[in-house]
């Protein structure tokens, strides 16, 4: 988990956050006649002009198919695509580009592991360990492969409203014939930051393979696969200021050779006969068909943009917002706040007394606030917490405390409106 040192603290203070906001043209607009406040960053982040322009330039100047061409445009497209891969390797400190597979996003990355690795490795009675705070994208792929292979799912419990993993049980759970432990780095509903390195170390002790869902962490804090020590890690471009339709699956070196191919098609082959095919080397072996080339270009620009600010700075900025929001929201009578009070990302989930989450978000929308209400693709967790839905307000570096103050005012109005 990121530590704050006083020198880094200074860095975050030195960033001109207001100026960065100007890089996001979409934020400078009115909705329903009032200024937009975008607080739905956990669903998707906005894109800075540099990212949008990088993709336009690609199509305006360099567009071609990759890898098998020898002409100028094809060379440019190939080198743009492959340098995005190199950048992604740096972004998570993967060391080697062979372990960087481009996918559509976190969901597809996890499905690849479940269907290719899982299918080859799970035997009847094997256990797949998840946590109760997983996103549907880190549950359903495992249910599907568990059914196919007669493996079984078990879950690390969440403690309650303060939303931590009950780690006292982990050791015991890991020893129950577990083959794979898949968990989220940061919860998209609770805001909890899980101690990924610690969890992976424990899993390794038991010979358990690990997958980290970094959808909510990759754009919000430094993510270092060497430090975490996981076997697989997944994240989405659209949640790190990048475009939709692109994401990354990281695969650790020793896993790469053992990972069977998943989708078949162009690019992923070395040689094809009518009845027999040999595979290309990783990462190409796992990328069938024409990839999302422009998406990779946009993701490259997004990673450059984020690391230009510094993800540790972003983390500190957002954490301050999260703490501020938590404090201000606590003032609202009868509000129920979910997740840990600290050691959290810049995200708050809550329930107002007398007002349903969707009524709150509809009302807030008319006041310009983009909030998300619902189960946040965390239905099992919601059921455990005894709620059908929550309101979620998730922040990013272009948000500020002033926006939070205005939100609190509107929430108080809403509370009154529905209480009658």
């Amino acid at each position: 988990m990121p530590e704050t040192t006083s020198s880094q603290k200074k860095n975050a203070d030195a960033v001109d956050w207001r100026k960065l906001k100007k890089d996001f043209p979409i934020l400078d607009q009115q909705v329903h006649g009032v200024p937009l406040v975008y607080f739905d960053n956990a669903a998707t982040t906005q894109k800075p002009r540099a990212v949008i322009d990088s993709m336009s330039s690609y199509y305006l100047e360099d567009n071609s198919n990759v890898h098998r061409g020898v002409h100028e445009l094809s060379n440019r497209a190939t080198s743009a695509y492959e340098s995005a891969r190199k950048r992604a390797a740096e972004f998570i400190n993967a060391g080697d580009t062979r372990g960087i597979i481009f996918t559509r996003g976190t969901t597809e990355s996890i499905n690849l592991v479940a269907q290719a690795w899982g299918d080859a490795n799970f035997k009847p009675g094997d256990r797949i360990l998840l946590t109760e705070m997983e996103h549907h994208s880190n549950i359903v792929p495992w249910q599907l492969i568990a059914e196919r292979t007669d493996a079984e799912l078990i879950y690390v419990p969440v403690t309650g409203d303060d939303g931590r993993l009950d780690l006292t049980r982990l050791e015991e759970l890991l020893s129950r014939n577990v083959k794979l432990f898949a968990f989220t780095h940061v919860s998209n509903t609770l805001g909890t930051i899980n101690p990924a390195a610690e969890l992976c170390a424990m899993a390794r002790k038991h010979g358990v393979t690990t997958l980290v869902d970094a959808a909510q962490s990759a754009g919000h804090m430094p993510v270092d696969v060497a430090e975490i020590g996981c076997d697989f890690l997944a994240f989405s471009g659209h949640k790190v200021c990048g475009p939709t339709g692109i994401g990354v699956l990281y695969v650790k070196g020793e896993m790469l050779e053992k990972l069977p191919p998943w989708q078949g098609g162009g690019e992923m082959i070395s040689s094809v006969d009518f009845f027999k095919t040999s595979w290309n080397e990783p990462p190409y072996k796992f990328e069938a068909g024409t990839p999302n080339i422009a998406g990779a270009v946009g993701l490259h620009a997004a990673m450059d943009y984020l690391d230009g600010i510094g993800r540790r700075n972003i983390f500190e900025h957002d954490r301050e917002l999260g703490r501020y929001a938590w404090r201000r929201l606590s003032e609202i009578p009868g509000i129920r706040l979910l997740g840990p009070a600290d050691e959290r990302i810049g995200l708050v989930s809550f329930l107002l007394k007398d007002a349903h989450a969707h009524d709150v978000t509809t009302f807030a929308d008319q006041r310009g606030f983009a909030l998300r209400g619902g189960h946040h693709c965390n239905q099992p967790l919601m059921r455990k917490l005894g709620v059908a839905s929550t309101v979620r307000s998730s922040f990013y570096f272009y948000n500020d405390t002033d926006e939070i103050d205005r939100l609190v005012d509107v929430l108080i109005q809403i509370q009154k409106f529905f209480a009658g």
Partner: protein
Amino acid sequence: MFGDLDDLYQDIILDYSRNPRNFRKIESPPARVVEGHNPLCGDELTLYLLMDGDVVRDVAFEGAGCAISKASASAMTTAVKGKTRSEALKVLENFHDMVTSGNAEVFEDDKLAAFSGVHKFPARVKCAMLGWRALESSLSSTDDESGAGVSVEKKTITTE
């Protein structure tokens, strides 16, 4: 004071949601029971329907949904009680037309007209339809010969 919001959350809707009508169980059997589920939000509503031949003798619901779904289900129960199956389905059709088009003509002088504002909030149309779709599903099931109610396990409300 609140623009489009006032259209959506009219006083009668707020009243119906705070004090839902026919918000109770009906014993089953003889009542038919259907669970409606809105996959967009995860809300669930249980509908109880007691038929007398072709006529809705009693109808009631339970569940924790949003203001729109509770108010709409309330209004539905008061609107269809005493109606025949086909009359009830006709009201449903008109109601659906109204919440998607905004045209409240058919319901002039009726409490159901209060829901016409929903059409400006496309993401909330499913809320307004939740109770109605459960009714539709319940009406289309048949009581078995013993007279026991038919319990449809769970009905996902996917079409608006």
